[in-house]
């Protein structure tokens, strides 16, 4: 009996120390000058633009990484080809490489003066670095593995019999995918989307390198937090942090609200 409580104490204590207390402090600090001050600091034009830009990152990176992630998982699980193992390993690269390195790598490719294709793009009026496209690329890069990693085990688990049954019943590849495979992996996809969204919301390092951090122009919510902190506007920094934390929380809750129906299906 004692060991049961000890286990809980360790688990909860660990979470409290690492997560609960620091995040709680952020909330307390955000509202130390009152709710109005916090509200004002996250509704300035700069703050609004920062949240808008973060929303754009999520709106582009999440759907693209979801579609690519499902296709990639299908290729890895359902097909046999040379380089399959390599593809499977490459998908994890964003987990392994530091976001700062990702940012620098993007500079090497898209940098306007001495990047690989950056000068050519600049001649054609496309600006990637210090602009939204580069920040989107950085966000996509760091949030790429989540859907793939969530979907692969689910695809393996459901096996191919349902798909074969659908084929013998007359369904073509598209019909089988949309009517059988996708519904069967939907919770894997949903969880992948939640994690991708959370990651895209919180991305800092890679975006920081390629953004140029122009307040009101190329500043996402996380960069806004850093900017405010460096300008000694603590309330602004903490209040924006609270908004980010709440957005992530809502994403996770949304998933838990829709999920319970699954166990009955």
């Amino acid at each position, binding site marked *: 009996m004692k060991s049961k409580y000890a286990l809980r104490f360790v688990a909860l204590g660990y979470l409290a120390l690492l997560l609960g207390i620091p995040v709680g402090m952020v909330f307390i600090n955000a509202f130390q000058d009152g709710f109005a001050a916090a509200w004002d600091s996250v509704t300035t034009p700069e703050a609004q633009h920062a949240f808008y830009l973060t929303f754009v990152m999520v709106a582009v990176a999440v759907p693209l990484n979801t579609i690519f992630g499902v296709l990639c998982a299908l290729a890895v699980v359902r097909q046999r080809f040379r380089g399959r193992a390599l593809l499977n390993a490459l998908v994890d690269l964003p987990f392994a490489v530091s976001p700062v390195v990702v940012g620098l790598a993007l500079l090497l490719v898209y940098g306007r003066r001495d990047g690989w294709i950056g000068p050519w793009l600049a001649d054609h009026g496309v600006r990637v670095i210090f602009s939204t496209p580069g920040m989107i690329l950085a966000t996509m890069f760091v949030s790429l593995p989540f859907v793939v990693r969530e979907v692969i085990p689910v695809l393996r688990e459901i096996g191919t019999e349902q798909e074969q049954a659908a084929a013998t*019943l007359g369904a073509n590849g598209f019909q089988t995918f949309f009517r059988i495979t996708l519904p069967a992996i939907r919770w894997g996809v949903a969880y992948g989307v939640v994690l991708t969204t959370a990651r895209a919301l919180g991305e800092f390092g890679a975006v920081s390198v390629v953004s140029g951090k122009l307040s009101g122009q190329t500043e996402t919510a996380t960069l806004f937090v850093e900017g405010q902190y460096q300008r000694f506007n603590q309330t602004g920094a903490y209040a924006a942090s609270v908004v980010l934390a709440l957005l992530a929380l809502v994403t996770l809750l949304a998933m838990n609200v829709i999920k319970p129906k699954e166990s*009955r299906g």
Partner: protein
Amino acid sequence: MSIVVDAVSKRFGDFVALDDVSLNVRDGSLTALLGPSGSGKSTLLRVIAGLEAPDSGRVLIAGEDATAKPPQRRNVGFVFQHYAAFKHMTVAKNVAFGLTIRKRPKDEIDERVDELLKLVHLDGFAHRYPSQLSGGQRQRMALARALAVQPRVLLLDEPFGALDATVRKELRAWLRRLHDEVHVTTVFVTHDQEEAMEVAEQIVVLNDGGIEQVGSPRDLYEKPANEFVMRFVGPVSELSGQWMRPHDVEILVEPSGGAAEAQIDRIVHLGFEVRVELSLGDGESTWVQTTRGRVEELELAEGQIVWLRPEAAPVSV
């Protein structure tokens, strides 16, 4: 519709699953593919369905070459051992799947689904999910789903293999009756000789990727083509270097010309049937299947010396 398998071979890496197999399945018949695991029976069924492509050879369904056709264009019903139920759909939606894909009018689909659910005794389960059904019910749902599209042939891969013994027996009898009602050409795979004998009109015995014999259950039992078939379709005993059915061995209490001397080791009463285990003079052991009445009549006892001889015209190889 008839099925013709013409010189089909299939390898998986180094493993030869089917080696130059040819087979005719008559229109409207009920055929069992019987064999041990690894004999190629499931592969043969999957080749007919188009779920595996043969390395060489042809498959004709209703006289038409189907070898190059994908499964969705063969119009075959396929039932899997583990049901392959669409878990996210209700029973009704599962059964309706093939018709929905074919974009049939909703009224027609509803009517057909009702009719099929009655046929498989699942009326009242239309709005349940597969997870709320027992194994036997799931398999009946899978059968209704396969029948919904009015397939030209119905293929079942170890359909009762995952069910417990009682349900398996029930479903066998039921499949037989269903075939009498629906008359669709049916081929099912099994490793259980009793199941094959009880359900099928024609049995195809496979071993090591080849066909050993094709015949009616009675033919296989009474005229096995070789030792493999003899041993696979029923029990065997060895007497004087010959294999025969244990009920074709006669026990005598007096010596007789040509009868082999043996000592009774054990008498096992299995109800009406009695199993007598014996040691022959040369140290070999064998067994005889007889009845309770016979044992009493001969007053057999463990340890007793008796004489064994084949009954008139036994089956042997």
